[in-house]
């Protein structure tokens, strides 16, 4: 029996979908193993088609993107109902991803910036999206509601598995689909298509004992090519981030930014990383410690680049 799958995006950029396509000729294997019933980026099915299915008809739904608006939530709930297995695909669905950074602000601040105050906005009439719009006299149109919060998928619906990454490595998606096809999925709630250890495990850079005396930004120093970024004073989230991406940023001389999310048992990837960084600072007196901390620009969003919405505190308190 061929698998029946749906692939959908919420508040996403489409990168996850492209990552599926990036399996190149192996996409044909996927097509051979599965009937795709919904995939907006590549195929033409409508929501109505899904609504018509029996509950649980789909074997698997891959959901990429965060829950940013009511449409995202609606389809997430719809797919959850229709699919036996719900998989959060990519950082946004897994931990909120880049869109999750919007949790540093409230809905009104964002709308104001986007539709009124941004330098490139031309909106003399001050039009902002309205949830209900009367087209003519009796026809009502609805726009999805722009939420105050960005949520990862599992804060909205029950999620069975997670495939992390921004985007997930194509081969990892392929192998995860293999697990599904072969019915070899691990226990519910597991992260699949990624490693069990942190990125450092697959990072080729030499790691020594770490003592940090200042933090550098990328333009402040040319990183030495073979040594651990963190040891050189660049903030690298590798130690707090799951492996599986193939250390692609590291190979491009960019310290890890944490898109593969936390490891098992870690409740808050970013705060954990802060604790680790603070631990390996050299000085013992408040003044010198603060001098180093001064060199860390924007610590909260640096360590929560992809995981703010899934962090323990989730957002800036109003």
């Amino acid at each position, binding site marked *: 029996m061929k698998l029946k799958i749906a692939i959908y995006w919420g508040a996403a950029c489409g990168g996850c979908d492209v990552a599926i396509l990036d399996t190149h000729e192996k996409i044909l294997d996927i097509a051979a193993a599965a009937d795709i019933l919904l995939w907006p980026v590549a195929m033409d099915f409508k929501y109505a088609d899904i609504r018509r299915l029996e509950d649980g008809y789909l074997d698997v739904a891959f959901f990429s993107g965060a829950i940013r608006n009511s449409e995202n939530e609606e389809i997430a709930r719809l797919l959850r109902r229709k699919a036996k297995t719900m998989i959060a695909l990519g950082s946004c669905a897994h931990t909120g991803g880049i869109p999750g950074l919007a949790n540093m602000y409230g809905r009104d601040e964002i709308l104001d910036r986007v539709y009124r105050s941004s330098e490139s906005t031309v909106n003399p009439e001050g039009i902002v999206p309205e949830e209900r719009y009367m087209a003519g006299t009796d026809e009502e149109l609805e726009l999805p509601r722009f939420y105050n919060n960005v949520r990862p998928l599992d804060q909205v619906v029950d999620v069975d598995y997670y495939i992390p990454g921004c985007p997930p490595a194509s081969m990892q998606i392929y192998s995860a689909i293999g697990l599904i096809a072969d019915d070899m999925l691990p226990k519910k709630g597991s992260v699949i298509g990624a490693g069990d250890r942190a990125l450092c495990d697959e990072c080729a850079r030499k790691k020594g004992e770490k003592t940090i005396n200042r933090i550098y930004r990328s333009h402040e120093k040319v990183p030495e090519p073979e040594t651990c970024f963190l040891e050189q004073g660049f903030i690298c989230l590798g130690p707090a981030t799951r492996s599986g991406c193939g250390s692609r940023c590291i190979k491009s001389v960019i310290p890890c930014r944490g898109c593969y999310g936390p490891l098992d048992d*870690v409740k808050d990837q970013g705060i954990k990383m802060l*604790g680790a960084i603070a631990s390996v600072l050299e000085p013992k007196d408040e003044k010198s410690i603060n001098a180093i901390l001064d060199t860390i620009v924007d610590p909260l969003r640096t360590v929560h680049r992809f995981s703010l919405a899934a962090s323990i505190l989730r957002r800036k308190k109003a």
Partner: protein
Amino acid sequence: MMKANGKSEGLIRLEIDGRTVSVPDGSTILDAAKLLGIEIPTLCYSPLIEPYAACRICSVEVEFSGGKRRIVTACNYPVWEGIKVYSDNAKVRRIRRMIVEMLLARCSSVGVLKDLAAKYGIEEVRLEKQEEKCILCGLCVRVCAEVVGKAAISFAGRGLHRRIATPYDRETEDCIACGACALVCPTGVIRVEDTEGRSVAHEELQLGPPKAVTVPFLQAVPNAPYIRVDRCIHFQTGGCGHCAEVCDRDAIDYEMKDEEIEVDAGNIIVATGFELFDPSVMGQYGYGRYRNVLTSLEFEHLNSASGPTGGRIMLANGDAPSVVGIVHCVGSRDQRYHEYCSKVCCMYALKYAHLIKEKTKAEVYNFYIDMRCSGKGYEEFYDRLLAEDVRFVRGKVGEISHVPIGEGEEGKLVIRVEDTLVGIVRRIPVDMVILCPAMKAQPDAKEFSRVFSCSVGRDGFFIEKHPKLAPVSTTTEGIFIAGACQGPKDIPETVAQGAAAAAEVLSLIDRKEIEIEAATAVIDEERCSGCRICNTLCSFGAISFDEQKKVSVINAALCKGCGTCVAACPQGVIKARHFTDRQIVSEIEGILR
């Protein structure tokens, strides 16, 4: 006896005062006489340096084989085969008497000359008397040049104006303050004083220059002398070297260097002891300014039978004290310095009082805050001292000064103290003050504790694992503490602790296995990525990196379970047994429910 210096091919026979003796060729008459035990007086002679024959007091009469007779100086006259020497006949005695009389006229109060005068029966000096102290023997000049290899002093002037002087009579940098000149001076006119500090005066209580070859203290282990490089002439000028010459066992090796020795040990007992509080910071007690204000340790040294005075208790001027004050709690039980009680001072102060009474009959005052005589037989000893008429004044001494105000204070040290039992301020004149300074922790205890992974308390002393249940253990397995490095304590307690520590070590060795902390941290090797964040965090060196597996590992035997690495591990793969994240988070949830 002088060594033969290799010239032993032929022996020379001669006769001194009718007795025959054989000595190596090249020996002097003085050497030969010494061999026979015949005493020939000398003044300018020292076996350390070439004979000089300046004072002529060693004059003897020699009869040659042909019967010819001559007066020669024994110190530098070489022996001849068959000569006969008369060391003390009438002629020799007459000559010596004249020499002594002339010297005595110059230096009428010099002890060695007085002794000689008595020996040769001089009752009246017929020449004009002078009060010089220096007999111009030149020993000092020659020892400085020949042994030390410097020329910091020499003769100056001629005839009647001949004297010993530094170049241009100024303080000279050539002088290395070795004290050799003072050591050889037969009249004691040369004194060594440190112009910048008081170390020379107090260390040996102005009884002579400090020695470069010394045994650290009488009970030292190993009880062997060592050379204090900073004091040794050889190490400063390349000269001297006499100790190597006289040592029959060739034990002295100037080339020896300090070396670091590595020893593999499974247990370490830290017994680094204490340091004495330096009372010179308490200016009001005049320590360092008044030569008769001593610390207890200095007094101990003075009082020691093997000390510089052979145990005679004396003041800086050599007189016996008639009143001695002992000041308790100097820098201890004092909020400005050390708040704790040094514990041992009361009892040693009582011991001193007893010994001073016994040895000098001096009156002894103890100035105390509280008498703390807890210990077996201690209170009884205190009672005995009370019966011995030792005076006890309860009150902290305010000041010790040499400025006399009242009667009987002239030339004394005056102790000003509030007698809190009577309620008046008293001034008590004494000759000698003994301060009982606080026992304080070694200044490098902190760095030391890092090496041994044990903790240091606020007072600087090492902290035991548990004050009652593990008094000689530390928080690091296999590291034990004993003695005053753990806190002030007396010898019985120290011995008991040392024995306890040794027993702990022996029991560990005997058991062949060790118990370890149950609440340790453990790394899940299957999930550790080897990021090495934790590697520098452990104060106990329990975390190491397995280069083979590329994971960090915790040595459970060393882990103390503090959990710092657990909190730092960004992967959550280090677990603190009994204090897991889950447990603590559940607690948080529980108490906030």
